[in-house]
């Protein structure tokens, strides 16, 4: 019984530690993704939160991303409109994936009903 309890405690600690490690890894990945997002200047057209802009030229919202990775990647590599192409020579697949994971994880903004200036338009 005592042995079981010890095992349980050890397992709990291990799970908690794994969770922390997992969370830290996620944070690191998110931080790396954000850094790449800024380094590559994605925010210059799409905004710091990926919100997009209708300013000239108009740029689509990319976060929280409504696109699957494949579509996102295809648009970055072979854009059809105003965006320039980011080839693998300048942005690796890994970097592209990290950027995608970052923008996909940007939290949803508040709803319209929670923003008086928009709710009352």
């Amino acid at each position, binding site marked *: 019984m005592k042995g079981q309890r010890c095992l349980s405690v050890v397992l709990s600690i291990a799970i908690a530690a794994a969770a922390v490690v997992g969370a830290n890894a996620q944070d690191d990945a998110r931080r790396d993704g954000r850094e790449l997002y800024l*380094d*590559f*200047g994605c*925010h*210059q*057209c799409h*905004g*710091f*939160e*990926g*919100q*997009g*802009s*209708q*300013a*000239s*030229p108009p*740029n689509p*919202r990319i*976060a929280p991303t409504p696109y699957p990775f494949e579509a996102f990647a295809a648009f970055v590599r072979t854009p059809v*409109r*105003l*965006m*320039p*192409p*980011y*080839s693998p*020579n*300048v*942005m690796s697949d890994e970097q592209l994936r990290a950027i995608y994971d970052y923008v996909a994880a940007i939290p949803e*903004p*508040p*709803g*319209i009903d929670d*923003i*008086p*200036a*928009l709710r*009352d*338009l």
Partner: protein
Amino acid sequence: MANDDKSDGLNRRGFLAGATAAGLAAVPLSKTTNVDAQESNRASAPLPNSMDAAMEHEIPGGYTGEQAKNYFVHHPGSDFMVDVLAALDLDYVALNPGSAFRGFHESILNYGGNRKPEILTCVHEEHAAAIAHGYAKVAKKPMAIACHGTVGIQHAAMAVYNAYADRVPMFILAADHGGIEDRTSQVLWTHTARDPLSPIKDYIKWDDYPRSLQHFGESAVRAYRYALTPPMGPVGIIMETVLQESDVHEHGLAVPEVLAPTLPLGDPNAIEEAADWLANAESPVIYADRFAQDQEGVDLLVELAELLQAPVVDQKGRMNFPNGHHLSQTAGVVGQADVILALEVRDIWGIVNRLQDAPDHTLTRAAPPNARVISLGTTEVNFGSNYQDFTRFYAADLPIAGDAQSSVPYLIEALRERISNRRASQISERRERWASAHASRRQASIDAARYAWNATPISTARMSLELYDLVKDKDWALTAPDNLHGSWETRLWNIERHYQTNGTSGAYGQGYGASSAVGAALGHREHGRLPICITGDGDTMYVPGVHWTAAHHHIPLLTVVHNNRAYHQEVMHVQKTAAWRQRGVDKGVEPGNIIDEPAIDFAALARSMGVFSTGPVASPSELRPALAQAIDVVEQGEPALVDVVSQPR
């Protein structure tokens, strides 16, 4: 009806010939408006006859006649010049002082009493010209600016080019030391030119170098009329220094009667044919750029669009159409057009085609291949060729030269004659489609605005819409374009009245936003409106001193600096170019493009010139109180500035 006319022999070739011969002639317009305009602008020279009497001057006590002649000037020519400006009903002259027009300057103050024109003190001639630009569009009348003939004109040049490209009248006075006997130092030689207006000659409508006061008066009236005849534009008159400063020797000086010009109408037969095309079109689309000159123009366009249930794309050269109207649509509608009506549109080629900004410059046609284009406007009454603001040539299927706003009532009348009840019923079926598209687009914009709402830097949506929430029940007027900060005003502010926006710069020259706003705000002042200028940090830094003019003259104006700390468009251009060249951006694209390190403190800058200011506002939660405080100041009659550290776009 038009078909009947054509059977009488008025075919296409016939009316084109007519357009050249008659369509541009000064035709009296409506029975009331133009006549009223003429009457209200009928002015007579106030003082030239009294000038004659005054020439018999008294000799001051203690001086011989010879001494008095050497020492004193009794009735300088520049007094007459002030009379001429008063006759032209020019309320203001914006100037940075210059010795070459010291005589004129003194006459405004001591002869004219600094009224009509009243001096607006500017710290740079570029401000003076931009103030005149913004003012004319609001006040519906030109402002004069006065400059040194060489250095002053060169300083003013860029802002004059904006006004030219925007087809806005401006009355430019340039001083020059014409005679060598007057050039008392090398400075004056450097401030003299054989053709002082040459730096801006490619983009003014007309200029003259009068050799006598009578000549000055006549040329000033001619210039005024040319400036106000569509297409409007800046004009220039030289004020020669000896003419300003010497006693008047001319007898019988008179200023010609000042009448507002009647407006050139489109050829009536061409308008009939346009009505045929539009009445029978299944999917007509209207584009308007510099169309509406006042609220009447807006109301006419609403009437025309509703008659056809045709979507209107407002290109925003002027406020042409209410953005809340269900027929207010965006450029994508051209893809559905069978007939396109372009009203005072400068770039018709750009409506019909898309030329992609990419290494291969892909060209595609945006309009359906069979879409026919009717152009109505004065854009082809061009008066310049060096500067290429006329854009790429497009051969419209039915080009009608004439002032569009003045011609549209006749188009509406012709359409009413052609649209039967049955046809009207068919046309009305279009309504639902456009209403639905309009509502969807508006809802999408509201939804888009919530993204990054709580972000730092502050989103452009929040910057614009928190402000709107504070002013929407006030009598506000926007003074600057919104295309560089998300076009949120166009998308979600309720823009109904012509004065609520003030068009674009014309030539996209930096410094327009902040400085034209001061002129626009001056025009709004007498109406008690709340003028608002949202403009960039780059634009502001071209003309920071203009805020001093606003403070000095107590011109109420709320300036919101969209401070993204960069020439952001250029950031994107260099970044795009680097991507095309596969060089990446890891070395950064900031040098040459960012305005940071140190960050400019716009609030401190404004404060140093006597303008109430807050900022830098970096936190979203600080934005609303900062804006509210600034609005209070403006409502008390003074300028205020809020520096908002914001997202790039």
